[in-house]
């Protein structure tokens, strides 16, 4: 089979930039009220006004595009997904040192391949006894610069198949995964479906099924303050922060019409960048780069939210197997207190053979972006000569 891998550079047409600026120029903002800058009510007005004005004129997308193309070596390849035909997948690929471990990084929503920006140089370098990694960070189908499927029913099994096949195309027959957010379910499914290929999984997000969650939150048995803090955070997320999920999982098309409005897209995503991180000091450039990837995405910003609906309505039973014990894959995890679902450590043991686990004292949902050094340290420790998954590392290094 001839590989279809081609180099790729982000190059957004001028027309797309002009369209964006044209829409921002006729922005209508909500009227100011007493709570306009109260984050409890949602994305704050002062921030949105400032960001919208900067996005319209000031923000230099071409400079950001150049930076992304320089720092992230990108490619595309065509993969076949059973029942959906061929999809062109966009991905970052950088080889580490000789003898490195192939690592598949899986983003979620509202993340992207961009989340690998800070960890890439740290993962690929070799320091001391720690391993080096060959990093592959795809845009999931419907996200970033990957194609979106043209039929309904593209669920977790399909996402797993798509990113697995990118690894196969690259010749990485055996690999490990790292993921958070949707990366939890998708990489767990990859491990389930391709156990001879995906040998270890590191997670920075541990999803707890709804039926287990309420009893977990109610439990006061945990003596560790960090665990208690984590459960309180989880409760907050379900009470105050779950509306986006309810919407995206039930009426993605309705929401989607609004997501084509840059001001709303900005507000919808920026709320998560604010609420889901541990006081990360986002610069306006960072925020707008992150959101521009959605604005300029190949499948359109509204395509990215379909995963919530499809996952919940189609292949759900099959998908729920990712919450069962999987003996075939070595499991490592890093938990961050300001993530959205922060279960106790003994819960993670229900998922598989835990060879590495660490509960950090700060950091949030976007671990690779907020705490890149810590995440890389954890990964290197997991696959270190003395690490819990060191046998895997030895077996698959190339």
């Amino acid at each position, binding site marked *: 089979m001839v590989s279809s891998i081609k180099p790729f550079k982000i190059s957004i047409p001028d027309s797309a930039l002009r369209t964006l600026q044209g829409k921002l120029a006729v922005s209508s903002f909500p009227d100011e009220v007493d709570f306009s800058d109260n984050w409890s009510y*949602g994305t704050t007005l002062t921030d949105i006004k400032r960001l919208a004005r900067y996005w319209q004129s000031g923000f230099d997308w071409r400079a950001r595009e150049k930076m992304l193309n320089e720092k992230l070596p990108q490619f595309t390849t065509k993969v076949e997904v059973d029942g959906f035909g061929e999809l062109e997948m966009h991905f970052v690929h950088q080889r580490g040192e000789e003898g490195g471990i192939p690592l598949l990084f899986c983003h979620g929503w509202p993340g992207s391949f961009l989340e690998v920006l800070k960890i890439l140089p740290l993962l690929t370098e070799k320091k001391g006894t720690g391993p080096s990694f060959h990093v592959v960070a795809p845009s999931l189908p419907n996200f970033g610069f990957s194609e*979106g499927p043209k*039929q309904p029913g593209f669920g977790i099994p399909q996402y797993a198949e798509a990113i697995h096949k990118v690894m196969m195309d690259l010749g990485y027959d055996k690999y490990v995964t790292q993921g958070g957010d949707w990366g939890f379910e998708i990489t767990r499914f990859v491990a389930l479906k391709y156990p001879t290929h995906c040998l270890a999984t590191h997670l920075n997000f541990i999803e707890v099924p709804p039926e287990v969650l309420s009893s977990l939150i109610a439990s006061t048995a945990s003596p560790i303050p960090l665990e208690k803090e984590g459960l309180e955070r989880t409760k907050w997320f379900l009470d105050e922060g779950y509306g986006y999920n*309810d919407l995206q999982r039930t009426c993605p098309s309705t929401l989607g*019409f609004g997501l084509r*409005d840059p001001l709303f897209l900005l507000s*919808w995503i920026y709320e998560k960048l604010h609420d889901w991180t541990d006081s990360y000091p986002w610069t306006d450039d960072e925020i707008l780069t992150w959101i521009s990837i959605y604005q300029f995405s190949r499948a359109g910003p509204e395509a990215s939210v379909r995963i919530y609906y499809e996952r919940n309505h189609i292949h759900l039973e099959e998908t729920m197997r990712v919450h069962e014990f999987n003996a075939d894959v070595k499991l490592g995890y890093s938990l961050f207190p300001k993530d959205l679902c922060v279960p106790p450590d003994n819960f993670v043991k229900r998922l598989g053979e835990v060879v590495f686990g660490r509960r950090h004292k700060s950091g949030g949902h976007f671990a690779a972006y907020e705490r890149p050094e810590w995440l890389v340290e954890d990964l290197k420790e997991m696959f270190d000569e003395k690490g819990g998954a060191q046998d895997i590392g030895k077996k698959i290094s190339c």
Partner: protein
Amino acid sequence: MSSPSPFEISIPSSELQRLHQKLALTDFPDEVSDISSNWSRGVPLSEIKRLIHYWQNSFDWRAAEARLNTFPQFTTAIEVEGFGVYDVHFIHQKSAVENAIPLMFLHGWPGSFVEVTKMLPELLKGGEEGEGPAFDVVAPSLIDFGFSAASKKESFNADQHAEACHKLMLSLGYSEYVIQAGDLGHLIARFIALKYGPKHCKATHLNSALPAEPTATSHPELYAELEKIPLDKAEIAGLMRTKIFSEEGNGYLRIQSTKPQTIGYSLTDSPVGLLAWIYEKMHGWSDNYPWSDDEILTWVSIYYFSTAGPSASSYLYYENEHRNPSAFAAMQVYINVPLGIASFEKDVIVLPKAWNRTLGPIVFESVYERGGHFAAWERPDAIVHDLKGMFGKEREGYWTRLSNRRKNEVDWVRGTLS
């Protein structure tokens, strides 16, 4: 007491121009088979494209405005304790019949004051041969909706809305009145009954009902009684509809109750976003009502051009949810004000009728096979029938028994409005 000022809707041309500028820039999602073409995942692309095209090229807002202005509208300043003075917009039409019953109609979301208009002619006229009472009708825009002022403040809750609506009736000389309401309006009606009934609010007729399920501890007698009676087919179907709503249809409620500001940017800045948001409910919550494009766009325009702006319509959801106890929980108590309940089988939440007995003394009940959530618009005949039945001749003297109105009070009201 200051008198109301007559009001006519007159949206500035600059706002119309801005809307059209934005419509021209509408960007549609790519077509994806089966996702774009049916209602499973929300409003279909083809519907939205058609409506945007119509909105841009054919919909005549000035004609819609003129139609709305055929109904007598006013604004009046109402003080809400601890919050401020608000200009409340309302339709007010008095019956020619003497001693007509003051009726306040309270709209919900995504409805508006316009929902009363189909019923007006019938409500205003008494029956020939004295059958069926006549009503003086007051239909406000809730604060933060339609052409009423913005609340602008945190914690402006159902309590405050109730106070404003009650004071509106008082300001019009109606110290005794009844209410017809559904959706959010019914929540406010319950608060009015709780706080101002039965002295002022004499009775409520509701086409939404959200009673708590009676349990062995909460309502032991009722619970014991119900245990002996199996649910009938219609009640089971109603519970199924309710289940589907809570699993698939209440995303809007969850987001409006937690992040009203975030969703507000779509409602305010994106006409197509607002259209999809509202039209999804107009379609999904009605019983195959044949909405015309003009009706759809008139309803959406009332939100688009609202005084407080479209994002304000979510704020009450947030305040209700964050009230302690939540407004929905607070209104489930037994309120000793006569209650009429109309149940429409195609509504979104349809709970067993017997549960309604936990809400208050039921003096009137009806069940309709046809009709959904927007009862006053889909089945104006049904609501009118209920109101005339609940307060009418068969219930002879019911209004007279309820009312302690003095004749000169009625004259005062006539005098103010002539």
